[in-house]
């Protein structure tokens, strides 16, 4: 889905902006709905947590920042949807570069995130038996 967000690839800028807006809303909603879990994990991070959990947390925080920057910069440079009422400051070139850079970095981070959770993915889809003991 994310890869189809390139406006050159799939039905152009209109689709890109509307789909991005919808995904952004769902992303923020997902964070709000899981806020309790996020708070618990944050407290654990600053307390006693295994190294792997800390690594996952750091990657997730950077991923969150990347997604938020993508959403904000995307809103700032939107053409088919009118967000002028939000009154974003800064040049459109800055926001455009921000949108590109954040999307590129976020894509890589998603790959790393998936790699770190690969065992979970395999177990979830029953491709790998869980070893007991």
């Amino acid at each position, binding site marked *: 889905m994310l*890869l189809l967000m390139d*406006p*050159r690839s799939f039905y*152009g800028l209109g689709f890109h902006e509307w789909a991005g807006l919808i995904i952004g809303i769902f992303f923020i909603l997902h964070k709000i709905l899981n806020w309790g879990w996020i708070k618990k994990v944050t407290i654990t991070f600053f307390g006693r947590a295994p190294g792997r959990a800390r690594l996952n947390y750091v990657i997730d925080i950077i991923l969150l920042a990347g997604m938020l920057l993508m959403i904000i910069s995307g809103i700032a440079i939107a053409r088919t949807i009118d967000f002028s009422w939000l009154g974003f400051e800064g040049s*459109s070139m800055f926001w455009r570069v*921000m949108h590109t850079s954040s999307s590129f970095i976020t894509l890589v981070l998603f*790959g*790393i995130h998936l790699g770190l959770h690969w065992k979970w993915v395999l177990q979830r889809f029953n491709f790998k038996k869980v070893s007991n003991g």
Partner: protein
Amino acid sequence: MVKKVFLLMLSAAIIVSGYLAFNRLNYWERSIRIVKFDSSQPVNGRMGRGGFEARGEARVDRPDFRQLPDSIRQRVENRERRGFKRPEIRNALPDSVRNSLSEGGELRSRNLNMPDSLRREFRNDNGGRPGFEAGIRGGSGHGRGNINGQKISLGNVWWFLAVFASFTVIVIYIDKLICFIRKRKRISVS
């Protein structure tokens, strides 16, 4: 054994294609561009291979045409129209262009330079031109919006997918390696 060899070869292929895609998309440079961004410098030339951000547009600080007051927007449009109404200019034009202007096609001929919000106001169709679906105003259409009449072009998607998959595979194998090293340490300690 066969399955393991197959998975190894697949992983190697993904990593190699990811490396090629990384170079092709100029991934590193475009990722860190925001760090090197300097808004005080004028924008000249290409912003990078394949980038759909503005290329050579010297309108870094110009306000969006949509945001200008109506009076100024109308003044800009009238100034453009007035140019074409001047007899010495109209007479210098080829017959085909002059005829299209006299048939009320002034706006159609200027669609390429017209902001899309105004274009939508004045016309319902694209006059045979590719729709302004994506990318930069006046873009030549290569990699932007409709490509040869097609709305879906997955060329770039495969390259991005290759980068994404290669990072996933690399992390999976690094993870496996770390687990293997830890297991060996535990065995040697015990």
